[in-house]
């Protein structure tokens, strides 16, 4: 079956004929009149969260439950020679103790797991942990990207590198790569011929940009509560994917998948770091089995900051050329990233996918160090890649004597993002930005900067949902997705209510349980575009079941009954037309239900990237180097937003995390010991209430027709451009390029000095 739909965005629509998967409704198109999609719906779990009733996994208390704790190695590199648990086992209240690292096993960073205990109270577990005796054979270690690259640096992996990727990683490689010392790579991509491209250029710029390691710092730490009942295991996990936790537990513990149940009712943030059972989850399950009692094992803040992942650092050298009329001729990126004991540090997403350029060369290297492993973090590689790319675009525009925004518009192949740039420019007052640079206070400068965002996912196949319509006219949705705080639960209810034409209070939603139909893991901004079309399809099919059941009652042909605008009728037959609620009373005892699996994406629809443009206005104190971000304008495409209220909240969050990354966050390791010196939230600074700017969010609806709800995710694109826009704004304010994150007062003062020296030589003002 094919259908003609309108795709595009306001002012740029086209008609496409697409193939519709049997059993799937055609995508909503711009002529559709919505009743609830697109309105601002307060989240359904608001009440339990504002009253403290919401039970997060960390809040679970079970009868006889023990508290688990993990012992970690204080050395940055060592070989474990012995683990003696005998004294710990005799401590009061102890129910189980086990070794995580066996003798002979190598420790690769300070904070790696060595052993664990479970005891009746948290205090007893602490005491028992102190009674574990571990002996180590220390080995040389290396921290810091530059030190690890040097010939003769201690090797983090003397054999094959044991790295892993996780859901949400983007372009993290996977092929067998060359390794030289601690350096893995390059992962290379090549398009056209960059040497030829640079020859054609009228201006070429080249510079190196440095970014720091950022930790996810979700407020609820990693962990789970594990309870065995015979050979069956139930866990309450803080996770971005209940099904992934289930599968890893089953595989590692060698029990059937069907015997493992994972629940996540409410969840205190993930940002990419919470996939799989992970070592603390497996440890909790093992402790619970040994103790014959439920075990709660959640990390404390120090452990969370040390060992659960991070956004790797980067040292990016970007070279770019363009012609006098402002067309890019060549782009080149060479990047080294410190991912600790993990790889996947590439940053090439933005340079490959934002601006059009025929000649592109990318070489990405992972550098192993004796530090906690990197893992996917909100738009992996992209905030750091966008920072370097967008600084380069500003530099090149300057070299050409062109307005930076005009230069971007000339090279941006995305009509949606060009529109976003234009909307944002008007809102921030781009044209008047030069006039605002000087302030009455000679020390204070203002600056305005811009950055572009790109993201990709339009959802994956695989998810399933069950929709049941009851005789009282209410409906129930079961879908094993989890809500990380993004509003997934509410999104599921809205889509079902829209398709069934029901008010929201008639729809109940159950999520966060592997006993339910499979829901997607929440990574890579895939949740909504994977779940929403699934829910709509299941609701659509449940509605068909309703029509069939009513047709039987009315003794009319099965396909002659329609459900439209809350009325069930057999068109052309006036005596057979009743409101929804009345029709439902005619249903058999348990109502009707349908389970559906998400249809494939319509690849024949309007292929595109998810886009965004952000503008920042900053005030810089050139005497102290302090930066204050006054305003951020964020213009984003979120497909057709299902709940603009939650979408805007998530964009607010992406901007604030981006600001925090741009100005404050920095994991610091002690070079003498290899230990992290700020595994906390007072010296690892994240943005607080005093730091946040006014954030102006605009959503541009895009009807791509790729899935039946035109939905895409906003989690990642919301944070891609912020640091870039802020860095460009600070550069604009001080008159010298910021090439390093975080933009601390020290970095600003160095830029101020550079600008003064350039001015003294008659350079840029």
């Amino acid at each position, binding site marked *: 079956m094919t259908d003609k739909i309108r795709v595009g965005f306001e002012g740029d629509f086209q008609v496409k004929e697409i193939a519709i998967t049997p059993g799937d409704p055609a995508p909503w198109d711009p002529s559709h009149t919505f009743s609830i999609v697109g309105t601002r719906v307060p989240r359904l779990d608001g009440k339990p969260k504002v009253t403290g009733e919401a039970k997060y996994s960390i809040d679970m208390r079970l009868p006889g439950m023990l508290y688990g704790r993990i012992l970690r190695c204080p050395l940055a590199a060592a070989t474990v020679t012995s683990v003696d648990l005998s004294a710990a086992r005799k401590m009061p209240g102890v129910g189980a103790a086990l070794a995580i690292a066996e003798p002979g096993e190598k420790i690769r960073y300070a904070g790696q797991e060595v052993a664990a205990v479970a005891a009746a109270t*948290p205090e007893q577990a*602490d005491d028992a*942990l102190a009674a574990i005796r571990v002996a180590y054979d220390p080995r040389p270690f290396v921290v810091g990207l530059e030190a690890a690259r040097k010939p003769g640096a201690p090797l983090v992996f003397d054999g094959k590198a044991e790295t892993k990727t996780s859901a949400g990683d983007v372009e993290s490689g996977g092929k067998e790569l060359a390794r030289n010392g601690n350096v893995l790579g390059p992962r290379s991509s090549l398009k056209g011929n960059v040497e030829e491209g640079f020859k054609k250029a009228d201006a070429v710029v080249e510079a190196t940009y440095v970014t720091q390691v950022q930790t996810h710092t979700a*407020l609820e730490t990693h962990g789970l509560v594990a309870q065995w009942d015979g050979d069956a295991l139930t866990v309450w996990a803080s996770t971005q994917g209940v099904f992934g936790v289930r599968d890893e537990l089953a595989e590692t513990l060698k029990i059937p998948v069907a015997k493992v149940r994972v629940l996540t009712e409410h969840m205190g943030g993930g*940002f990419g770091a919470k996939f799989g059972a992970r070592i603390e989850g497996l440890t909790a399950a093992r402790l619970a089995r040994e103790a014959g009692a439920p075990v709660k094992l959640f990390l404390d803040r120090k452990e969370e900051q040390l060992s659960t992942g991070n956004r790797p650092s980067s040292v990016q050298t970007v070279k770019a050329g363009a012609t006098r009329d402002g067309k890019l001729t060549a782009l080149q990126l060479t990047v080294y990233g410190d991912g600790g004991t993990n790889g996947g540090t590439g940053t090439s997403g933005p340079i490959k996918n934002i601006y059009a350029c025929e000649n592109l060369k990318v070489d990405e290297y992972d550098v192993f160090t004796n530090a906690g492993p990197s893992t996917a973090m909100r738009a992996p590689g992209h905030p750091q890649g966008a920072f370097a790319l967008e600084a380069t675009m500003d530099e090149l525009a300057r070299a050409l004597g062109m307005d930076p925004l005009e230069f971007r518009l000339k090279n941006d192949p995305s009509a949606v993002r060009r529109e976003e740039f234009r909307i944002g420019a008007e809102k921030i007052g781009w044209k008047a930005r030069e006039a605002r640079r000087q302030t009455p206070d000679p020390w204070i400068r203002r600056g305005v900067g811009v950055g572009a965002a790109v993201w990709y996912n339009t959802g994956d196949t695989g998810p399933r949902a069950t929709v049941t319509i009851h005789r009282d006219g209410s409906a129930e949705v079961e879908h094993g997705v989890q809500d990380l705080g993004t509003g997934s639960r509410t999104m599921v209810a809205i889509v079902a209510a829209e398709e069934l034409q029901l008010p929201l209070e008639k729809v109940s939603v159950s999520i966060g349980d592997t006993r339910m139909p499979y829901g997607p893991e929440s990574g890579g901004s895939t949740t909504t575009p994977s779940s929403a079309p699934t829910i709509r399809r299941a609701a659509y099919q449940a509605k068909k079941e309703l029509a069939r059941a009513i047709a039987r009652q009315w003794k009319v042909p099965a396909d002659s009954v329609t459900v439209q605008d809350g009325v069930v009728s057999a068109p052309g037959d006036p005596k057979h037309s009743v409101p929804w609620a009345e029709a439902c009373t005619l249903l058999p005892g348990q109502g009707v239900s349908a389970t559906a699996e998400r249809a494939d994406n319509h690849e024949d629809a309007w292929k595109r990237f998810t886009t965004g443009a952000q503008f920042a206005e900053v005030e810089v104190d050139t005497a102290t180097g302090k930066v204050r971000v006054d305003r951020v304008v964020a213009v984003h495409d979120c497909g057709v937003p299902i709940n603009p209220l939650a979408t805007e*909240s998530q964009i*607010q969050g992406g901007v604030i995390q981006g600001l925090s990354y741009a100005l404050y966050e920095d994991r610091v390791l002690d070079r003498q010991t290899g230990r992290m010196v700020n595994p906390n939230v007072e010296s690892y600074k994240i943005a607080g209430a*005093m730091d946040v700017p006014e954030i102006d969010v605009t959503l541009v609806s895009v009807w791509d027709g790729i899935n039946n709800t035109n939905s895409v995710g906003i989690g990642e694109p919301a944070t891609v451009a912020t640091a870039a826009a802020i860095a460009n704004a600070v550069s604009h304010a001080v008159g010298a390029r910021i090439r390093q994150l975080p933009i601390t007062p020290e970095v600003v003062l160095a830029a101020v000095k550079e600008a003064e020296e350039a001015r003294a030589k008659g350079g840029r003002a």
Partner: protein
Amino acid sequence: MSDEPRGGFTRRDLVRGSLVGAIAAGVGTKAGPAEPGPIGPGAAPLELTVNGTVHRMSVEPRVTLVEALRDRIGLTGTKVVCGRGACGACTVLVDGRTVCSCLMLAHEATGKSIATIEGLAAGGRLTPLQEAFIAADALQCGFCTSGMILSCQALLEREPKPSRQAIREAVAGNLCRCGTYNHVFDAVERAAGLKTAQGASPTVLARSGLPPDGSRRIEDDPRVGKAIREAMEEEGLA
């Protein structure tokens, strides 16, 4: 770590090492502490008055107030994020003042009146502040929300019509990772009757269903684009 059993310095380590036995603990009633005297290191009886209810338990002196609330009493609305007074997630009201309950020992709270997030909605009826948090979407994952609300509640009690700056300052010690801050400020202004334009309309909230006309801002219309720009021009924003 092997030489730092609990993964380094925490409040509990500090108090375990230096304060055991030195706490003037009143194993008393709300009427006033009993004769102070040394307790510990073993468990000692304790009464805590939380949300007007007296809870009796026996805990070691090193147990913090938040641990007593969460692990002993089961009031898990109060969260622990940093364990050292840096994030405000464990904020409770002790005799009406905001306190980081990870920095107060359970025995120190004897004889004091403790209010937690669970005590706010009397009889299941949300306070205007709680309603405003929902309406303004001032929560995402919700893990900082209990502490945020209690800090804001304390602010509204001492300053019923706070300025935006005063709100910022009131929650300066409450960290949020999802980035709800601006919506928190909106929520407090809404609860104080200072603002109604942002967030979901109260009408939508009350009905929780199909939105009435007027709850939809022009930018929220799914068919945005040209419409947004025109509206912005009309409002002088563009």
